[in-house]
């Protein structure tokens, strides 16, 4: 008898860190030491708790030592329960599922990553790898990241560290600055950062993740600047129950966002309705 693909595994919460007022990172390790979580950046797990349910959550870090992290914003019953689990506690995971960022296409190419809000989360493990591995080849990485307000920008320490790496440029923007916050950077939507005076080089490959409306404008701006649609990758969010291409909730045209995505080449998803792309 084939075991059910819907059976979750227990993972121990090793550490919890506060990323913003409603967002926490859970660093996890599978309790079964013989099981491995071999994920690639851009993939996701179904993360859940018995009696409450499961939600698709991307990896925010993938360690070689069996540790992995999910950065979760508490917005619904499942995600709010998940970020309430303390170190030593257990959450359940199934995965990794879905497609990943096109790592094999990155070598030697100038890359722009455009992220909005929580859209930085699935990009984080990839950007970390890129900063560590690949800038010696002379290619450049431009990270553009926008958030609603300074306190909502995630991973500030990582962003600072990446910005000081050779060949890497990081630009941040926020929509608004509440009283009491210090902000010297630009304000406005993330696509505005593309017009920054130092945006001299056209990117050869783009990685885009954020609210779908933001992605729509980001992709449009990238194409207007001469990028080929097939060189633009987007990571989509949809309702998912199974994560394995069965339950149907995430369908977008002939694509299952869970199995064919969540990372797509832009032309794969562009023709279909019920998206904001």
């Amino acid at each position, binding site marked *: 008898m084939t075991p*059910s693909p*819907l059976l979750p595994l*227990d993972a121990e919460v090793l550490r919890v860190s506060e990323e913003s007022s409603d967002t926490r990172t859970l660093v996890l390790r599978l309790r079964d030491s013989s099981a491995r979580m071999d994920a690639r950046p851009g993939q996701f797990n179904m993360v859940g708790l018995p009696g409450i349910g499961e939600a698709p959550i991307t990896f925010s870090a993938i360690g070689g030592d069996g540790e992995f992290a999910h950065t979760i914003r508490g917005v619904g019953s499942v995600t709010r329960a998940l970020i309430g689990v303390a170190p030593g506690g257990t959450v359940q995971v199934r995965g990794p599922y879905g497609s990943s960022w096109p790592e094999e296409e990155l070598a030697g190419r100038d890359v722009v990553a455009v992220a909005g809000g929580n859209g930085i989360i699935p990009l984080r493990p990839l950007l970390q790898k890129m900063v560590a591995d690949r800038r010696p080849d002379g290619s450049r990485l431009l990270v553009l990241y926008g958030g609603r307000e300074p306190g909502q920008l995630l991973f500030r320490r990582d962003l600072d560290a990446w910005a000081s790496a050779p060949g890497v440029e990081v630009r941040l923007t926020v929509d608004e600055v509440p009283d009491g916050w210090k902000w010297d950077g630009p304000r406005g939507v993330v696509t505005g950062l593309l017009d920054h005076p130092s945006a001299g080089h056209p990117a050869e490959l783009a990685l885009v993740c954020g609210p779908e409306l933001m992605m729509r404008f980001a992709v449009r701006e990238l194409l207007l600047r001469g990028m080929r649609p097939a060189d633009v990758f987007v990571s989509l969010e949809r309702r998912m129950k199974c994560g394995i291409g*069965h339950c149907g909730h995430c369908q977008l045209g002939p694509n299952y966002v869970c199995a064919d995505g969540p990372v797509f080449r832009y032309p794969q998803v562009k023709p279909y309705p019920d998206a904001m792309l």
Partner: protein
Amino acid sequence: MPAAFPARRLAREDLHGLVVRWAGAREVVAPVREGNEVHWRPVTDAAQVDWDYASTMLPPSKVLYKPLVDVARFTRAGDAVATGAVEPDARPSLLLAVHPCDLHGILVLDRTVKGRRFVDPSYAAWRAQTLIVGLNCRHVGELCFCASFGTGPFYSRWMDQGPSDGCDLLLTELEGDCLVEVMSRPGEELLAGTRMTEASETDYAERDRLEESARSRFKKKLEIGGLPELLLRNLEHPVWERVGEGRCLSCTNCTMVCPTCYCYDLQDRSSLDLRETVRARRWDSCQDRNFAAVHFGNFRATRKARLRQFVCHKLSYWVGQHGCFGCVGCGRCIRLCPTGIDLAEIAGEIRRTEKAEDLKGKAEG
């Protein structure tokens, strides 16, 4: 045309004897009339079977793809939670008198939840434990259009799959007797020890004549040439708004009765003392308002969008997704729609609009 498989002639009373014998060894599920509807029910006797049925309310594929299936069990003891698998409850069964459209419905469902990287254990187990006896269809209903897809009224090779994938025996009712085509080894075993004569050229000729007669009675037709692309070109055709917003009630009947719909929700139900939680998959529907909702909004908030998803999935996206149409022309979604929404008519209207525009373009050009 001779049959592609060895066929025998079987007396009707011998078939009835066989049903009793089969029912002794496995659960036989067949179309049974209850009031104005026909349902798939366990039978022990051929007399309980409605051999002349036109269509059933639920398709036989959904006798195999159960509406509510437990997939995991969680048991709490203190802080610890033990996760347990739930074994499929499939038992030896036989689906009797399945029309060709519904045989294809099962083949299509196979591709969605059994033929991909991940397999649904419950469906796979029921499918493996269930023998299928097909019945070529002589009852072309007003809303039937299987002939348009090649999925009926008689059963034949389809989409590069051998018919044996779809059933074990195939029956055709001749005058007085039955023609039995053997499609598999288990099918052969179902007939063991039964008196039969080899089918003659006359029997084949009668079968072909009956098929031609059935074929000639279709009133409803759907032109499938270029259909997936046609719909993709017309995602903003006025028909979606007019029918979706004007008539669709979001009742989800169309998806519940569809032989190929496979969408489900996962739901946890816990005992009152919270010691036990069972996670189950339960049929869900793209016509439900919250089906495609995420925290910031709903990708298909309107009935227009949800109707378009149903029709375009069946008649367009499915082809790219699973290599076949998601519709077999059984007509259930039309018959059981409280407001009579007709996906074939929607597709037909879109084609007529394009043709009219083409003609207009030519006249002006």
